[in-house]
């Protein structure tokens, strides 16, 4: 299990495969105020999509430069995507 759901936070660790997108989605739907802690080596696009769509508070570091430069800002962005 690489998506770890805590009381007020959801931790992503290790290699988060595509199938864990569902777990992340349901955890965030149940507790939208949870913050998401990024501590993973790899995060599959499916999980990034959940984060971009639901835009929770995200702390921690992205596993690669592309997600740090271009995906994290999307999640933090206040306005919805065009």
């Amino acid at each position, binding site marked *: 299990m690489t998506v770890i759901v805590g009381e007020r936070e959801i931790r992503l660790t290790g290699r988060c495969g*595509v199938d864990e997108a569902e777990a992340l989605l349901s955890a965030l739907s149940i507790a939208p105020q949870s913050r998401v802690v990024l501590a993973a080596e790899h995060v599959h696009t499916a999980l990034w999509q959940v984060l971009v*769509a639901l835009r929770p508070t995200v702390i921690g570091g992205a596993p690669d430069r592309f997600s740090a430069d271009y995906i994290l800002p999307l999640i933090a962005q206040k306005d919805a995507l065009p």
Partner: protein
Amino acid sequence: MDDLLAQFVIEAAELTQQAAEDLLALDCEPGNRARLDSAFRAIHTLKGSVGLFDLAPMQGALHSAEDLLDLAIKDNVELDPTRIDPILAVLEWIDRCVQHLQRVGTLPPTAEDEGAKLVLWLASGRAVTPAPSPVAGGTLPQWAAKLFDANPAIHRNGAVALRYTPAPECFFSGDDPISLMAGVPELVFARISTRENWRDPAEFDPFRSNLIFEAISMAKRADIEAIFRLIPDQIAIAHDATTDPSELPAESHETTTRTIRVDLARIDDIVGLVGELLTAKNGMSALVTQAQLLDGGLALSRNVAALQQDIGRLVAQLQRAATDVRMVPLGDTLRRLSRLVREISGQTGKPLQLVVTGGEIEADKTIVDGLYEPLLHIIRNAVDHGIEPEEQRQIAGKPAKGTISVSARQVGHRIELAVGDDGRGIELGHIRSTALARGLISAEAAAALGESDCLELLFAPGFSTSETVSDLSGRGVGMDAVRSSVRRLGGKVTISSAVGTGTTIVLSLPTSFAMSRVILVTVAGEQYGVPMESIAETVRIPASAITQVRSNEAFALRDRTIPILRLGDIVGSGAPGRSEEMLLVLEIGASALGLVVDGIGERFETLLRPPAGLLRAVRGILGTTVLGDGRIIMVLDLEALLA
């Protein structure tokens, strides 16, 4: 692509390069008449070559460019930038068209418009009016133009735009789009949008890909294309090839020229050096052992070992890259066969057709070139001895036209070339009587021969099954010549035949003279290399487990009785048996064989050098290799030794 067009592609690249160099020189030194003449000649020649093909837009633009230069030469006027620039733009455009032609086989769909614009521009150059830049941006797709427009700070020259629209179902095929994007080198800009608006969490399907990526990279277009190669339908890549003509530097040609011609000897030098590098890497094993013996040297030894592994990986990559350069498609040789078959058909009066498949498969140039001769003999033999005269074929209910098929396929690291004919096949009785008549075998031996042994006789030197020695296959170019030339390439030949329906000869060859895994064995104090590929396992058995079967030895391994040979006897330095024997178990074809050796040493990877000089005449030597400590050892060709 046909030969003529392939040649044109090479020549066109050279001519545009030449003309562009001349024009750039003229830009600095407008009075240089030699350069002007040279540019004119190059463009004139290019126009002539273009005329061989149906490439009207190119023809038109080149014609105008040639006119412009011709005028300058006749009127003895200096070319100024207003005239040089449009010609350079034409050359650059020609280059692009030729590349498109090479890749797709046609001109880009926009070629006609672009060509017309260039002709206009050239005309304006002739009138010496300041030229607008009619082609700038004209070739970029709209999305790419928008992407560049949104980033005016990025220098378009050399930048590549990409638009990646992952299929909604792509996660199910294992795609991870963000991961792919993270792998794009030299990214300078990216933006992400969505296919459709995000739904509420309740309806949101996390397994549908909804993102669209647009980005600009400064990396080479080919490198980016390689990343998205498996999803050509989801990716669009564009680069602004029509750079502002006034700043067309010489180096821009380097980025558009995709092939260079290199002397094969220079590539071989590189391959040779890689081999040396490999040897040097193997030498590090001794360092690992030495370090282990030091006080507290374990960590050092581990580090050296790890480093050796890293270097090994890099050398292997380098070796692959170097051997790749020598890879050419088989089609280069196979194409020559169709002319051969036409010729033979004319000579023999037998109507023939040649069916070739697998021409796209690649192998080392030496192997591809070396295949022509054996294929030629095989096909001649097939027509001579296999394909029946037209009347006979009709009686047999076969199509009048005889078919020769040459099909290549890749099997692991080998290629298999099957040459088949639909002729009469080979009568075994015929082989027997011919061999008998030629004194190759005795009458009892002939009667006892099985089918495959019988066919093997075809490879005996000087064998010819035709009653009359014909013009074509004649004497002395029998199957023995085929086998020996294929062997020189590291290959094998097998034959199968069915009376009445035809004969198939299969050549199995390596794709390249690649690295071999070799194990060192000791026999009577000497070390030899043995290729690992033929070794199934190594076992140690008590001497008592070896049983005598008539004059031969054998032992039982997992319910299988395996004959034993002593390598010492084969290399001519027999040693007495001992209480426990070390055996290499070899799998050759369907049979197994135990080979007794005195000791087994390290295993390593090496680039085998083909035997040279005196060794070439020695049977059973695959090649030589250099050990880490500089000693040269012989690598044995077990199959030849045991044959």
